[in-house]
């Protein structure tokens, strides 16, 4: 497990507790949730900084440097590519949500089940993507282009494998799955 997993292991329960405290105990209402979540984010950041500083990972840090103000173009190019990819994907789902909202409450509820599921399942390819880009990047940096290419291929095939498994499970469980989200018994056929 890596550092950020440990941090999230600590801060996730704190997030739940803070949300409960703010919303129910202190009766902050709607604004309690974002306040609690914001505190959790800052806490996670500070804990991660402490890990990097005191436990492991401070050696690439050479102090604040003017070099941070150079080389913005390639960084922004890479960032914009990322925004374009993920942004268009999210936009596609937002369009579905807006249209479903105009169809009525039940289609919107069904859509929100799908959206929640999608978010949950998305953590698998997302994690795979992070692992792949770090692996490919490390091997490229170490001047091992062939192994780097193998790493990229492994990532692609692993995602095909996981995609197939998830698809099969969802197809088999589709008539039961919706019941997890609702006490009402409207099914896909209604």
């Amino acid at each position: 497990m890596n550092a950020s997993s440990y941090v999230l292991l600590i801060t996730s329960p704190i997030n739940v507790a803070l949300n409960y405290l703010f919303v129910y105990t202190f009766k902050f209402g709607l604004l309690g949730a974002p306040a609690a979540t914001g505190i959790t984010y800052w806490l996670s950041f500070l804990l991660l900084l402490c890990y990097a500083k005191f436990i492991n990972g401070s050696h690439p840090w050479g102090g604040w440097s003017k070099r941070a103000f150079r080389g913005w173009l390639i960084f922004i190019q890479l960032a914009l590519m990322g925004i374009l990819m993920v942004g268009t994907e999210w936009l596609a789902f937002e369009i579905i949500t807006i249209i479903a909202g105009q169809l009525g409450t039940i289609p919107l509820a069904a859509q929100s089940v799908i959206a929640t599921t999608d978010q949950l399942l998305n953590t698998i390819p997302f994690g795979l993507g992070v692992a792949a880009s770090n692996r490919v990047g490390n091997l490229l940096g170490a001047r091992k282009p062939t192994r780097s290419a193998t790493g990229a291929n492994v990532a692609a095939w692993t995602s095909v494998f996981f995609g197939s498994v998830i698809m099969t499970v969802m197809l088999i469980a589709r008539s039961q799955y919706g019941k997890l989200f609702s006490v009402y018994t409207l099914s896909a056929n209604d």
Partner: protein
Amino acid sequence: MVPRQLVDSGFAMTYSDGEDTLGSQVYASGIDPYGLGVILQRAYIILSIFYIPFACLWWFSEPVFIALGQEDYIAERSCKFLQMLIPGGWGYILFETTKKYLQAQGR
């Protein structure tokens, strides 16, 4: 629903893709011992600047939600929700950025 997903979409994750690709290469090449630290600083600065337009959009999101056809009370309360989330969103960006710095080192 719409505003909640807006919040969840995690702009920081996509922004910090730049750090993923660059950081791991610089670290593994070993040519520049402080290169990754510099990339982290650069990411802090650039991503914080990128956050400003989103913070503005969140602060003034009520008319946007109304224009998207949401009901008035939903638009008003979603806007308040997002306004409250603005400081936390910045913390999230800094967390994601630091996370990538550690991930590039394999930690």
